[in-house]
């Protein structure tokens, strides 16, 4: 068996073992390091132990913002109520709201890309500008956004718009251009109008690829959202991470980071499954 054999056909067991090996190694190394550091310094907060992580997760899930421990008032509440008012849930809701606003604003971008690709005058009018706009580093305009839109929600959503929409517009434009001209002609010969061809022929064909493009841009979208929250926000997952950094609260930061990764993974998975369900004809290249 050679690892560098192009024609190798890994067995089921080998596939399972190899694909989880790096996860297992990472976990083992983490806890080994944590144990070693705590032997040297029992008050170490940089690499929390499992019990510290567990207490951090409990605190994040059950304590309200500003409480170190669940408050006396909160003690009387049900676990569900405490969780609903806890930091983790309120931060998740705040970040998710901004995330979905940003996601919703990508749909006009898709339509603009479609129109640019299919209506030549639309394309000529917008393309050069969007190509230039795409080269602007979104984070570099953050101060301008805060001055222009204030430090409220709008500036954070605008950051997402500036950061991600040009990519989606250009991607949709290219996907539209990639539809074989025979398909457009076919549409016209079957009596379709220009808008019928745009929406009932082209958009339907490129839609699964557009969803894929949005899916692949979820991480940049979160990146811009986190940048906005870290700099100017009073709630949200990134705000909490930035806040806890000052107190070296690694026992909460690490669960937060893993929670964000899990959420993003779930959104990605949901979009992939939805794409597969809605478009059974679609075969990914």
């Amino acid at each position: 068996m050679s690892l560098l054999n192009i024609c190798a056909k890994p067995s089921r067991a080998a596939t399972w073992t190899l694909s989880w090996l790096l996860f297992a190694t990472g976990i083992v190394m983490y806890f080994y390091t944590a144990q070693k550091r705590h032997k040297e310094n029992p008050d170490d907060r940089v690499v929390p132990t499992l019990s510290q992580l567990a207490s951090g997760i409990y605190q994040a899930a059950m304590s309200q913002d500003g409480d170190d421990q669940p408050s006396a008032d909160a003690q009387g509440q049900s676990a569900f109520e405490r969780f609903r008012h806890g930091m983790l849930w309120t931060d998740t809701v705040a970040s998710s709201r901004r995330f979905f606003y940003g996601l919703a604003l990508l749909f006009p971008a898709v339509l603009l890309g479609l129109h640019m690709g299919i209506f030549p005058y639309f394309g000529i009018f917008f393309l050069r500008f969007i190509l230039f706009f795409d080269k602007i580093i979104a984070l570099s305009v953050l101060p301008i956004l805060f001055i222009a839109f204030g430090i409220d929600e709008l500036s954070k959503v605008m950051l997402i718009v500036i950061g991600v929409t040009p990519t989606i517009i250009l991607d949709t434009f290219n996907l539209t251009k990639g539809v074989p001209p025979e398909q457009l002609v076919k549409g016209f010969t079957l009596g379709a109008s220009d808008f019928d061809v745009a929406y009932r022929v082209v958009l339907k064909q490129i839609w699964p690829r557009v969803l894929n493009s949005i899916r692949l841009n979820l991480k940049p979208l979160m990146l811009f959202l986190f940048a906005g929250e870290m700099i100017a926000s009073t709630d949200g997952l990134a705000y909490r991470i930035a806040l806890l950094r000052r107190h070296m609260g690694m026992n909460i930061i690490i669960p937060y980071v893993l929670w964000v990764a899990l959420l993003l993974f779930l959104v990605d998975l949901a979009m992939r499954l939805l794409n597969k369900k809605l478009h059974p004809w679609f075969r990914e290249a």
Partner: protein
Amino acid sequence: MVPGSLTESTQALLDPPPREDPFIRLDRIRVSYALKGGERKIVLDGIDLEIHAGEFISVIGQTGCGKSTLLRLVLGSETPTEGRVLVEGREVVRPDRDRGYVPQKYSLFPDKTVVDNITFGLEVEEFNLLTCFTPRYYTRRHEFRAEAMRQLAKMGLHETDATKYPDQLSGGMQQRVAIAQALVMKPKILLMDEAFSALDPGTRAGMQKLIREVWKETGTTVLFVTHNIAEAVRLATRVIVLAKNPAADGSRVALDLSTAEPDISARIEQVTGHIRSDAS
């Protein structure tokens, strides 16, 4: 009846028969493309062609001679550099529902099932983007589907194929669906661009038989582009050969095999020597 006057039928016998206007007319067509350096590549030059309603025309010629360009001119997806293309006396400016189209590739919408591909034309003709969500649409949809199933049966496809997507069909089946999709709109002209080129010989023969039957049944004017000489001769009522311009400037002209001058015919025979023997 006034004495000395003629009945309509007698008058008709005495008058010379009215000259029938061509159904499709290509009038002094020239198509050229700009090349780098300001030069132009001439694809078609001086093409004059008249096609009458109900004809089955095959267009043949060597690869790159402009057969598909000629078809696209009639289709309206390409405009001539000079000259005009007229269908029923009206200049062709863009593709429309009067001209059905069956290309070699991408003949079906990949996102739609077989039945949805066939009903697409019927649906867009009656329902626009806004009205396609009304209750009436869903009622009519049943009728469209019934019509699509009739077309499918005519093309020799099974009911079970109706819910399949194009990539689940063989090449021959895809082209059958594409023909059904075009015919359901009852087009005045059917334009087929190398429609059978990618098929194996057995399927191809079946498709040739099918298109000939469809043409006989519907009387639709067919413009059939192919590089297969035997196929062209076997199917068509008239064969047009795109050959080099006798002026020898590198461009192509359309020569009608049935009416060409004897010397030109001889030259065509040289180029397409085995037409007759293949056809027989």
